[in-house]
């Protein structure tokens, strides 16, 4: 399958850019970021609060397979319907710091495009966060190996 989502993370920079084109009208794409029930579905998270307006705040929660709860919070700095969403993002109780996220929505011929520009507190924090899914993948594989190994004993 074609890779639709692109990540641009230059070495030594403290930001990254996620770009993606959608086979959706711009209005529907934008809606998916401001309606709590829709965010819940595609983010796979509980939306406890989402005030989609300038200076509004939000709070999401997910529960991992071990039953631990992870909180995600932030404040909306700017919201221009169908054009732009600027907000902060923070994973609670993690060392990743606060990220500034700028969502830029673009209209195309019957389709739409989204650019997410994320700015981190430092280059190190950006790299650590980028590695997270990679590290988790390795950890899962590692744990599975340990499970198998322990059964062999």
């Amino acid at each position, binding site marked *: 399958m074609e*890779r*639709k*989502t*692109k*990540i641009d*993370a230059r070495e030594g920079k403290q930001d990254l850019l*996620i770009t*993606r084109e*959608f*086979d*959706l009208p711009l209005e*529907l*794409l934008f*809606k*998916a970021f401001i309606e709590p029930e*829709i965010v819940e*579905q*595609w*983010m*796979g998270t509980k939306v406890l609060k989402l005030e989609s307006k300038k200076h509004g705040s939000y709070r999401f929660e997910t529960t991992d397979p071990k039953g631990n709860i992870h909180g995600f919070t932030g404040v909306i700095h700017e919201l221009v319907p169908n054009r732009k969403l600027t907000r902060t993002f923070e994973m609670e109780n993690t060392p990743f710091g606060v990220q500034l996220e700028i969502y830029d929505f673009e209209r195309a011929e019957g389709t739409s495009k*989204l650019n997410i520009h994320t700015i981190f507190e430092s280059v190190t924090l950006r*790299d650590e966060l*980028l*590695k*997270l*899914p*990679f*590290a*988790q*993948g*390795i950890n899962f594989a*590692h744990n599975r190996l340990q499970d198998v190994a322990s059964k062999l004993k």
Partner: protein
Amino acid sequence: MNLRRDVFQAIADPTRRAILVLVATQSMTAGAIASNFDTARPTVSKHLQILTECELLEQEQNGREIYYHFNAKKMKEVADFVEPFRKMWDERLNKLEAIMKNYKPKK
């Protein structure tokens, strides 16, 4: 917290990156590698141990000498470390697209 050696921890150190660059062109013994650095020999040995533990280097016994090889396959894995992050976003946004394609306004 276990002391699992990870590849990123390994290449975060400038001396270890320099060792990888050296060994990438030819297999070398620990002594030959150490002679390229001003650092104390035990320090270089420690770096070699870390690089070996995370499989960026492989050891091969040749007579009485141990040669260090560069494991290019592992390095490729490092180059691809952004891929799981991209995949995570791709899956998430695919889901968004699918949901919105079936979206029916309420009322």
